[in-house]
């Protein structure tokens, strides 16, 4: 079940609101319990046994948090508890995310050295639990923050379970720190103003996802799965993917923030018009902000950040982005994607945090930055590096205009798809962000939001093509 599905919007969400309202004036624990139960039902819908895994991870971190909070400041068991939390979370993440990759790499190595008989062909194939990359990071940040004294420990297990599992941000972020919602878990306000803004954010997010991301995704899929492309179509496909991933993810985040507001929670911004960035440094302050700030606080700074000289800074930036790429999945393409951004950030740092093209006017800087990001997305989207290489070849016009390439062009150039790309470009570079647009909710804007909701929902009933990219991470 994804936010942008009729099942969630018209069956789960009304039920959740109804149950939540019923316990709103009751004891806080009851409210936490209802939210946690709803969240586990939401999560378990995708694959029920994995609820136990999430509960295990949550339990370990809650206990570790209590140990840390209950021990004297210099006690060894404080550090031991953090180590247990980090190792357990990374082990769970590592096993489910990278086991299959490890087996495939081993088999490839055996084949390469000519001893395929030692290949591990009948080994267990592991299914990736939904949202594991998000909730392990979220849960791990809690114990680290308790250790650092940046947040109070959870008052009771139910509060912590509710925090980790909260369905509005569980499977695809934003990654919420406990410190950001600790006081809201204790008490939060429920006003018509908050609810209305939540409705508007949710509606805009749904519109981005259904009306922009999905059609762009269809174009991108046709291009990236083609055997042959002419250059213009290869660029069109890459552009479509850049829009798809942006509107897919930012739309989902808008919905997550909107849903949070419906239940009284305030979550920070996760996207801030990233394609308007004039440098990669700026891009990473605007794209998936909760992940980039997590990597900064829990990886970059502990590695030394920028405190140990220029070379160490460049190394740290590169390593963090490399691991950030690996976080997305166990594939060389994600690692290379991260490395590209790491090199870019290091280069800009060497230039004094300025863009690599300082002399250009800002619009051209934005264009150049977008071009780099777009080319990196080609690697990110490709199933493997060889396919990425082939795609770059198409973009350079190295493919021959075979009949199949002409046919793909017919698929890519459907009027609806092209209109959507134009609309996507307009929204990306000319329209205000969802936060800015919903700040002033006039009757007209409120009406437009609801109209957008209805339009997107109506299209949902026809589609059955409703992927969500970040569900696989």
């Amino acid at each position, binding site marked *: 079940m994804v936010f942008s599905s009729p099942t969630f*919007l018209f*069956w789960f969400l009304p039920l959740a609101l109804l149950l939540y309202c019923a316990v709103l004036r009751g004891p806080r624990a009851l409210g936490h319990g209802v939210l946690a139960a709803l969240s586990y039902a939401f999560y378990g819908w995708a694959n029920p046994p994995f609820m136990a895994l999430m509960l295990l991870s949550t339990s370990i971190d809650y206990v570790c948090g209590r140990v840390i909070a209950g021990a004297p400041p210099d006690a060894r068991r404080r550090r031991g508890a953090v180590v247990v939390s980090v190792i357990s979370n990374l082990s769970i993440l590592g096993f489910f995310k990278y086991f299959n990759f490890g087996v495939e790499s081993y088999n490839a190595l055996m084949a390469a050295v000519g001893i395929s008989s030692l290949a591990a062909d009948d080994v267990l194939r592991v299914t990736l639990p939904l949202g594991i990359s998000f909730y392990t990071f979220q849960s791990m940040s809690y114990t680290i923050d308790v250790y650092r004294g940046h947040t109070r420990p959870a008052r009771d297990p139910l509060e912590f379970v509710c925090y980790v599992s909260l369905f509005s941000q569980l499977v695809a972020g934003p990654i919420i720190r406990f410190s950001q919602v600790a006081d809201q878990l204790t008490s939060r306000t429920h006003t018509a103003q908050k609810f*209305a*803004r939540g409705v508007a954010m949710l509606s805009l997010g749904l519109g981005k996802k259904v009306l922009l991301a999905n059609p762009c995704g269809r174009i991108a899929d046709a291009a990236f799965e083609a*055997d042959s492309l002419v250059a213009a179509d290869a660029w069109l496909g890459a552009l479509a993917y850049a829009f798809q991933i942006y509107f897919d993810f930012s739309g989902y985040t808008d919905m997550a923030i909107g849903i949070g507001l419906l239940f009284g929670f*305030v979550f920070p911004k996760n996207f801030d018009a990233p394609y308007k960035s004039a440098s990669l440094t700026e891009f990473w302050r605007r794209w998936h902000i909760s992940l980039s700030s997590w990597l900064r606080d829990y990886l970059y700074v502990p590695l030394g950040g920028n405190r140990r000289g220029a070379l160490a800074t460049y190394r740290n930036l590169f390593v963090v982005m490399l691991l950030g790429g690996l976080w997305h999945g166990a594939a060389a393409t994600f690692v290379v994607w991260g490395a590209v951004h790491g090199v870019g950030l290091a280069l800009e740092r060497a230039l004094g945090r300025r863009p690599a093209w300082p002399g250009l006017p800002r619009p051209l800087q934005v264009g150049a930055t977008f071009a780099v990001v777009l080319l990196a997305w080609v690697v990110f989207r490709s199933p493997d590096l060889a396919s990425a290489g082939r795609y770059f070849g198409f973009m350079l016009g190295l493919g021959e205009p075979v009949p199949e390439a*002409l046919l793909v062009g017919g698929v890519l150039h459907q*009027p*609806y798809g092209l209109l959507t790309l134009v609309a996507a470009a307009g929204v990306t570079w000319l329209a205000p962000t969802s936060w800015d647009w919903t700040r002033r909710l006039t009757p007209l804007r409120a009406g437009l939001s609801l109209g957008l909701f209805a339009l997107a929902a*109506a299209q949902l009933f026809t589609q059955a093509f409703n992927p969500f990219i970040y569900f696989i991470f």
Partner: protein
Amino acid sequence: MPVSTRELDEARIEEARRELEATEVGRGTAWATSAAFVLCLLAVPLADMLSGGLDPGWVRDGRPAHCRLREVERVLDEETRVARMLRPTVQSLLLLLGAGNASVEPGRDGWLFQREAVASVTGRAFTAPDVQNRRRIEGDGCTPDPHPDALEAVLEFERALSQRGSRLILLPTPAKASVEPGRLTRRFRAGDPPPRNAGFAGFVAALRERGVTVFDPLPVLRDVARTGSAYLATDTHWGPGSVEAVANGLARFLEAEGLLSRGDSSYTRTRLLVRNRGDVAALLGARPASVPLEESTIRPVLAADGAAWRPEPSAQVLLLGDSFSNVYSDREAFAREEGRLHWGEGAGLAEQLSFALQRPVDRLVRNDDGAFATRLELARRLEHVGGSTWPRIVVWQFAERELAFGDWRPVPLPSGDPTPTDDAGDAPAPGESGPRVVRGTVVARASLPAPGESPYADALFAVRLADLDQISGAALPEDLVVYLRGLEDGRMAPAARVGVGDTVELVLHPWQDTAVQARYAGLFRAELEEDDALFLPAFHGVLR
């Protein structure tokens, strides 16, 4: 003074709180927006509750819970009253803008293409090792991992047939986009080379190198396309003229190869005008006015005595075919008169081949799954009919998209009489026997595609019965497979709810019964996954 990361983090949440507090919205607007939103959310479930509720489609089919939840979600997404009410109109509006849906790619001038079939043409070579490796692990726990290697499957089948003295003729049927690309995009002009999957040429070359005979109908179909339409505009399949041309071309090919000479059976043809809306149009789900009915003239083949053509089990030629062979032979669909018409009967590939050869032809045809289904049917016939004569020539027709997306599961052919027939002997026809009534427990069932997920409006699915308690009729084996009706005219049939663990009473007819074969054998059929179930005695069943 440097700002700590904690301060940066707190600044973000504070920014969000300030942002929220700065929201400018009038009280009335806020309440009206909230109320309107909640009413919107409640409209869908209320509409269903007030109209008698919604069947969530929960069926115990032995699959993991998340697979069955996915089916429930599909029902909640697509089968609500509001969804069924809005879908045709919204889809029609989208069609005006050139948008299809997950299954349909709109072409020019009202032509519609099945998206998967287009992708099979434009996608990576199906023979590429990395493509096959990815396909091998694409099962999601709800559907089995496919066997992507068509070459191995075809070679194995050819070897098995050769051992029986039969010659295999492969007839891969091109996708509509290969023959009529100009109907999809104006980038193609008449005479341009046809698009085809990048792996196809190599695949055929590899087969021919190993002695497998391949009859490629593409040149014949392009000839048809030059003077009209080779394919139906709103359907996946070829037009009746194409079927005749391919049958004729195949017959001349067989004669040229010295495999068969023209016979003297005196088949004739009549004419019949059929009006229908194609299977791709049905997948689109738009309003009927958006996709007008198509007219097509079919020429049903008649025997010398004027009776309708019938397959001849002792014929020298056996056709194994999918829906391309069956589209003008679909007796079950054509016989049903409520609502939808179909494309007629008596004019399919087997019939036209029979006419072109002036010889009887036998056939085993089944909609969909051309990679696997008819090999299985042949194997079952050998296993259970027994003593059957054996054709000299086996023509295996399947849609080319199966090469990219099909499941080329191995199917061992049981050992049988290797002597090929010369039309002199009579094959013992499967005898008709009376119905058998049985009570039994369902221990396994196949999973059905949902309505709208496949182009076929009618489908059967297999269940495995155990703990049998026979109520009447001839003796039954202890372990058997029953095919029940799953889809009927695009809707879930009552028997589709039968689940694992259910005790059911069924009226059974042997699957090899002539009447059963004539009516149901060609329908799409969901098979059990277990290999040991493939060759169990099979029956057609109706819930009592």
